[in-house]
């Protein structure tokens, strides 16, 4: 039977990788559709709001990477035990997303001098502000980002953190051993290790 879920994104990790990790973690079959950038212009207006990723299931289509990841997290039971615990997870995810929003536009900057300046500001103001605080959260939470145990927040951080190194050309987590530990722990999970082995090699 065809998989019940179809996830559509570009041929990169980006904001879809967290969902690919969650599908893999839960052993849930999914169609991993990767579109080429040159085809995006024609496909854009077929999506709900002109953005990817989208998730199709039972004839319905939704967008928004974090919303999709939260849905899958519930399916694979990487969520809190009550509303307040889920608020704590959601808040850390949104905080990591705030970092992503500062990183993303810099990739688009064409002026090399401007780009260099933006990267310096990113390192000093954004990473310098957020990463020590997230590092402290992991220390407080026995090696996890929230609730003292594995949640989808750890998957979210792991799959977005590659872009920190990509934009700076540095090992950004080198001075954050606890955050690095989260990433290593998640990527060492047998099902995730397997996913990393089998995912398309074109994947950035």
């Amino acid at each position, binding site marked *: 039977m065809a998989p019940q879920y179809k996830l559509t994104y570009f041929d990169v990790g980006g904001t879809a990788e967290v969902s690919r990790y969650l599908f893999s973690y839960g052993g849930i079959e999914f169609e991993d559709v990767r579109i080429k950038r040159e085809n995006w212009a024609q496909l854009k207006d077929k999506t709900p709001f002109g953005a990817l990723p989208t998730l199709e299931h039972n004839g319905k289509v939704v967008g*928004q990477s974090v*919303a999709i990841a939260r849905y899958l997290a519930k399916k694979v039971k990487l969520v809190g035990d009550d509303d307040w615990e889920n608020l704590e997870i959601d808040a850390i995810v949104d905080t990591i997303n705030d970092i992503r929003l500062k990183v993303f536009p810099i990739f688009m900057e064409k002026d090399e001098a401007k780009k260099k300046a933006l990267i310096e500001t990113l390192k000093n103001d954004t990473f310098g502000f957020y990463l020590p605080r997230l590092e402290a959260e992991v220390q407080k939470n026995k090696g996890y980002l929230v609730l003292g145990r594995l949640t989808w927040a750890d998957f979210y951080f792991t799959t977005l953190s590659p872009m920190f190194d990509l934009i700076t050309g540095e090992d950004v987590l080198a001075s954050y051993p606890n955050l690095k530990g989260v990433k290593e722990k998640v990527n060492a999970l047998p099902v995730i290790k397997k996913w990393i082995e089998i995912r398309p090699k074109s994947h950035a």
Partner: protein
Amino acid sequence: MMEGACIKRTRKSINIFNTTEEMAPAYKLTYFPVEALAEPIRFLFSYGGIEFEDFRFDRENWPQMKPNMPFGQVPVLEHNGKVAHQSIAMARYAAKKAKLVGNDEWEDLEIDAIVDTVNDLRQKIALYHYEADAAVKESRKEPLFKETLPYYLQRLDAVVKANNGHLALGKLTWADLYFVAILKYLNSMCGGNDILADYPNLTALKNTVLELPAIKTWVEKRPNTDM
């Protein structure tokens, strides 16, 4: 025990039918003295009949307060000795308490996706409004008003048309309250015009939400601010 030794702050009012104890509200919401990103949470608590302390600090106190916030931002929500942050996460929590959520995980996904889309629009408007460089700001004006706003508002208007006058699930959800609660903020960032002027279904939704008795009561009693 001597009466004077009791230090718990309670007031007892005894009436013929029952005894009620009044205590400080279970929730304290802290924000700037504006609607903006805290207003959805205020709407949702009000709709759910959930008492909350609506604490608005003076702007000049912000520099001292900022380092004490979880990630240097407000709003924050205090409850049972814990402090939460991130406005949308807190709105989702309030929505669950107010029972304005979906009946299953897919329904909640549909609501979340619309709320995040509205938030995307807010961020794009904010990129224009808060730009410090006047030339850069001017260059962002036309794309925002001629392309971005119509792109989102046309689609959101169509969603409301297809959903029985609501933003998701064909019925009232927290997506509706979220959208209407930040409207004044969006309008003020867009220069004070009514961005919904050309969108009849979104305008009708705004009126639907503002006519809800609990929301009407809240809007009448809340401090009057520009955004």
